[in-house]
């Protein structure tokens, strides 16, 4: 217990950073992922190809390599200089968006095709059809896998440890410098993640209940 109490400030600051990384990347990846899913089901072949190519590249690349690119490769291109923290957000968002895209797309596929046909027959445009009819219904079946994707994102933030971005994954390094028991410290980090994930599970249950409609 002393590992935790002696370093409470470190733990709180580190988990605060983890939460911030998660929240920003979570929102960005949900937005980008939904946009990508819209591309992948669009009637325009070029859009579908772009969406498919994005998912193929980002989903098949190890997250560590995405980090390597944005923290070490990208600066060499000398386009716009970004801080390591921003680079971490970009890497996490782009990577997770590929998974969000596939979750949303599978949700879209659960909506009967007649719903889209009725929308089109009424004169709704593709974007209106997606926004007003298909996505709201797709959301219901998307909640459990989307929660899993978000939990994975939360834990993936620790990959930033290898790139000198301060968050819960770097607690070990700080403890080690101070001569604390590192293994005990890591146990507390693990418990910290469990505590962070539990509310997500609760959010999942709430949404599942709210969106379960008679069918």
């Amino acid at each position: 217990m002393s590992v935790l109490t002696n370093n409470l400030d470190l733990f709180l600051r580190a988990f605060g950073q983890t939460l911030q990384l998660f929240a920003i990347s979570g929102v960005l990846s949900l937005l980008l992922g939904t946009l990508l899913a819209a591309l992948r089901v669009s009637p325009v072949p070029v859009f579908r190809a772009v969406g498919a190519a994005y998912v193929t590249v980002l989903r098949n690349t190890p997250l560590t390599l995405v980090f390597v690119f944005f923290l070490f490769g990208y600066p060499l291109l000398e386009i716009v200089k970004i801080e390591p923290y921003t680079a971490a957000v970009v890497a996490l968002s782009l990577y997770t968006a590929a998974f969000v895209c596939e979750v949303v797309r599978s949700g879209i596929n659960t909506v009967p095709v007649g719903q889209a046909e009725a929308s089109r027959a009424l004169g709704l445009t593709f974007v209106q059809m997606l926004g007003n009819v298909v996505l709201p219904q797709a959301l219901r079946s998307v909640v459990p896998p989307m929660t899993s994707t978000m939990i994975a994102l939360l834990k993936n933030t620790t990959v930033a440890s290898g790139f000198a971005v301060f968050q819960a994954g770097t607690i070990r390094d700080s403890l080690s410098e101070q001569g604390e028991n590192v293994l005990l410290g890591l146990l507390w980090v693990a418990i910290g993640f469990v505590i962070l994930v539990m509310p997500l599970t609760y959010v999942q249950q709430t949404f599942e209940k709210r969106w379960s409609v008679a069918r």
Partner: protein
Amino acid sequence: MTAASAPPMIRMAGVDKFFGPLHVLKNVQLEVPKGQVVVVLGPSGSGKSTLCRTINRLEPIDSGVIEVDGQPLPAEGKELARLRADVGMVFQSFNLFAHKTIVENVMLAPTKVRKIPAAEARKTAMELLERVGIANQADKFPAQLSGGQQQRVAIARSLAMKPKVMLFDEPTSALDPEMVQEVLDVMTSLAKEGMTMLVVTHEMGFARKAADRVIFMADGEVVEDSTPEEFFSAPKSNRAKDFLGKILTH
């Protein structure tokens, strides 16, 4: 009937459609003048549903011309959406929006496509629901209604767009027998008011009573094109005689 100079509401010329190697529409010629009620009959697999769905381009065609009110069908995009807004369609499986209440189903397209203010759209929607006899169910969800009620809502939803023409793709085929009549009654009253209608159906009673004209299709071709009296009393082709023999004797 309208003046001879007015373009037909629907014009199909030389329309061909393939599903892979299957030739589902063969050189279809069809003109429907404004205000006419056309019933399309035929055995299953004859291409009558496909014909209906090509008119608002839910099924693209491989060759030929389709015009609605003198305007050729545009390619997929905003232009096509505008044209579809003027063409009502009622499906066999109703296709009401499952996550929206009955009145919201009727209001959605007028508010999103026609940009009508919500209050006004709601008022019109309630009037239409009153007309099809479901105003008291306005705040329920589609799954809480019977099939016949759902199909009447679907008709109201189409009418809310004030369409120039209505397409019905087997509107009573998924209904329990006792619910067929309530839907046919709504369709008959629409026909009497002068709505241009193209109805794919197996309801011979409706064809006799409400149709101005009967089209008989077989194997993707329009085989007969005549009045209901003529078609039912003196069909010309063997295919039609065979078809009528099968449905009228059971």
